[in-house]
C-alpha cells in the first residue's frame, strides 16, 4: 500500500470520518475537527502505524500534509535502508 493511502487511513481513524481524502496541500484549517488535541493524537497514531518516532524538530516544522508524507517516506527509508 502506498504511504499516502496508509496515511489517509490513519487520518480517517483519528477523525472518525471515512470521507476524508488527504492531499499534499491539506492543512489543519481544512478539517473541522483538527484541533490541538487531535493533532497530538494524529502524530501519535502515525508514529504507531509506521513504527517511527518523530523528533520534536520534525514535528514543529510540518506545515502541511505534503511535509508529513515526505517525512514519513524519509524516515521509513532510514529505518529500512
Amino acid at each position, binding site marked *: 500500500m502506498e504511504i499516502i493511502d496508509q496515511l489517509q487511513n490513519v487520518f480517517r*481513524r*483519528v477523525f*472518525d470520518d471515512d470521507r476524508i481524502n488527504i492531499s499534499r496541500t491539506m492543512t489543519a484549517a481544512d478539517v473541522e475537527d483538527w484541533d*490541538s*488535541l487531535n493533532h*497530538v*493524537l494524529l502524530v*501519535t*497514531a502515525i508514529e*504507531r502505524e509506521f513504527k517511527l518516532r*518523530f*523528533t*520534536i524538530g520534525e*514535528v*514543529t516544522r510540518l506545515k502541511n500534509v505534503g511535509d508529513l508524507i515526505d517525512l514519513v517516506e524519509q524516515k521509513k527509508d532510514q529505518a529500512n535502508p
Partner: protein
Amino acid sequence: MSGDVFGVAQRPQPFGASELFSDVLSKSRLLDSSPTELFSLVKKFNKKKSNYIIDNSKNLIECKLAIFGSTTTSFITDLLEFYLFAHGIKPTIFEGVYNSVISEITNVGSDFRKFRPNLVLLMSDVRQELQHFPKIFATQDEIDQWVNERLIFFHQLWKGVGDSQIIQTLFVIPDERTLGAFECNVPFSKNVCIQRLNLALIEHRPANVVFLDLDFLAARFGKRRWGDPKNYFLNKQPFSFDALELVVFHVSCLVRSLMGRPKKCLVLDLDNTLWGGIIGDDGIAGIKLDPNDPEGEAFIAFQKYVKALKERGVLLAVCSKNDENIAKSVFFQHPAMVLQLDDIACFVANWRDKATNIHQIARILNIGMDSIVFFDDNPVEREIVRQNCQDVQVIEVPDDPSLYIAALDEACAFDWGQLSHEDTLRTASYVNDVRRKELEVSCVNYDDFLSSLGLEVQIGRITDHQITRFTQLINKSNQFNFRTIRYCEADIIMMMGDRDNHVLLYCDLNDKFSNYGLISAVILKRESNYVFVDTWVMSCRVLNRGVEKAVTNSMVEIAKKWGCDNLWVEYIPTKKNNLVSNLPVELGFRTVTDASVCPFSTTSGLLYLREIKEFRPLIHHIKITNQ
C-alpha cells in the same frame, strides 16, 4: 454509612451505552487500547450522550468539576467525562485556562467563581511549579524553609478555592538525577526535596483536600514510559498519552467515592479464591493453605490483604457453592486461615445461583447492589453475576492466585474520600445484627444464562486412557456421590472387560470459558430386567448446568438398549453427600418407600426408580458432540 434499602428498580441501560461502559468498569480496562481507540470510544458515546442523560436522569449523580493544571488538561477532560458517566455520574466540567489557576480563583467575578464547582481537580507539575530548588550543600534549615514556603503557597491556594472538595495531585519525582547515584544520598538533592515536599503536603492535609498520588501512578505505569518529553515541550502535556487511561481511571474512581457512590462490600468465593482446591472434595487436609507451600502462601497473602480491607471498614461477605457446614469448617479448623468468621459480615453457602445469592446479601446488609464488588475465580460464576447484577462490580480474576492481590488492588474498588475511626468498627456492628431473610424466588433467567455458556459434552463408554482420571474422580468425590463406593483401577479394568453387564460412562464438559475434562463418572450394572446405578459421581463445580440431565438421558438410553424396564438409584447418606439426597426426584425418578418392591437388598439407602417405557428425554441447554 447510609445504606440504600434494596428495592431500587434495576437501572435501564439504553442500547449501546452499557456496552461502552462495561469495558471501563467490569471486564477489562482499556489498558491495551491505543489513545486513538480510546477517543473513538468517547466520540461514540458523545453521539448518544444527550439521550443517555435523558434516559438515566433519575439515577445519575450531578457533579460540577473544575480542572486546573499547570500543564495541559484538555486531553484528560474528554476521557474523564466518559469514565465519570460510566460510574453513574453526570459531570459538568469547567476547564481552567492553562496555568491560570491563581488568576481564576482570585478574580471574584471570574467564570470559575460563577461555576461553583463541587470538586476542583488541581494538577501540579514539577517542571512548571518548582523551578527553584535548594542549593547544593544547603543546610537542613534552608531545606525546611524551602518546603515551608511551598506548603504555605498550597494552603493559600486551597483556601482561595473555597469550600469545594479539592483533589490535588502530588508531585511526580522526575525520571532524571543530576547527582546520579548520589541523588538519594544527600538531603539537598532535587528529588529528595520533592519527596520531602510531598510528605509535608500529606502531613498538613486540610480536611477538604484529598491527594492523588501521581508519583505512585507513574511508578505503577513505569516512569520511563510515563514521561513524554517531546509532547511536554510541544504541548505542555504532563505525561504520555499511553498513561492517560490509567490516570483517568484513578481520578474517576476517586470522584465516584467523593460524590457519594463508594463501594462498601466485597463478596468473596471460597474454593480456589481464599484457598486452593475444593473443600467439599479435598477436605481440610487437602486444600492448599499451608504457608510452607508456595500456592498456599499465595492464598494466605491474599487473605491478609482482604483482612486489611476489612480492618479499615470494607464489609466482607462470602458467597460460595458449598454445604454451609463444610464451608465453615475451614474457618473453624484450618490453622492457617487468616480470615475468621467474625470478619465476615454475611456468610452465604448453598447451591443456589450466585446472582440470587448476591441479591440476598444486599438485602441482609441493607446496601445497594451498586456498592458490591464480586471476586470469584470461576468465569462462569462471574458471567452469571455480570448478566444478572448489572450494578455489581465484577473483578476480572486472573488464573494465577499469586496475582489476586494485584487484580483487586488495581481495580480501585474501595477508593474512599475519607477514612474514620468508625470505619474500623463497621463489620462488628453487622455481625451482631444480621437478619436471615427468607430466600425469595430467583430473579435470574437461568435458561438464558445456560444457553449463553455454549455448553458441550461428550458422553460415552470409557477407554483405556481415561481409566486413571475416571478412578480418581470416583475416589475423591464426596458431595455429588450417591453410594460412596471406592474402586481401584484394577476394579475398573475388570468391569470394563465385562461389557455385557457393565457400562462405565465418562462425561467430558467444556463451555466458552474452559475445557473441564472429565467431570462425571457413572457405573451401570445390568441385572435381569433392570439397570442399577452402582456409581454416579460428578464434580460440584459443574452443578446445575444440565449435565445431570444429559447423563440421566444417557443412562436411560443404555437401559433401553439392554431391553430393561427400570433404572434404579440407591442413595446412601453420608455426612457429605446431602447435596444429592433429592436429586433423582428432580430428574424424574420416583421415591420407593416399600423395600419389598426393590429387586436388590438395601439396608441404609433411599431408593429411586425410573421406568424406561414412557421416559421423555430431559431438556437441557447442552450440545452433545460425540453421538
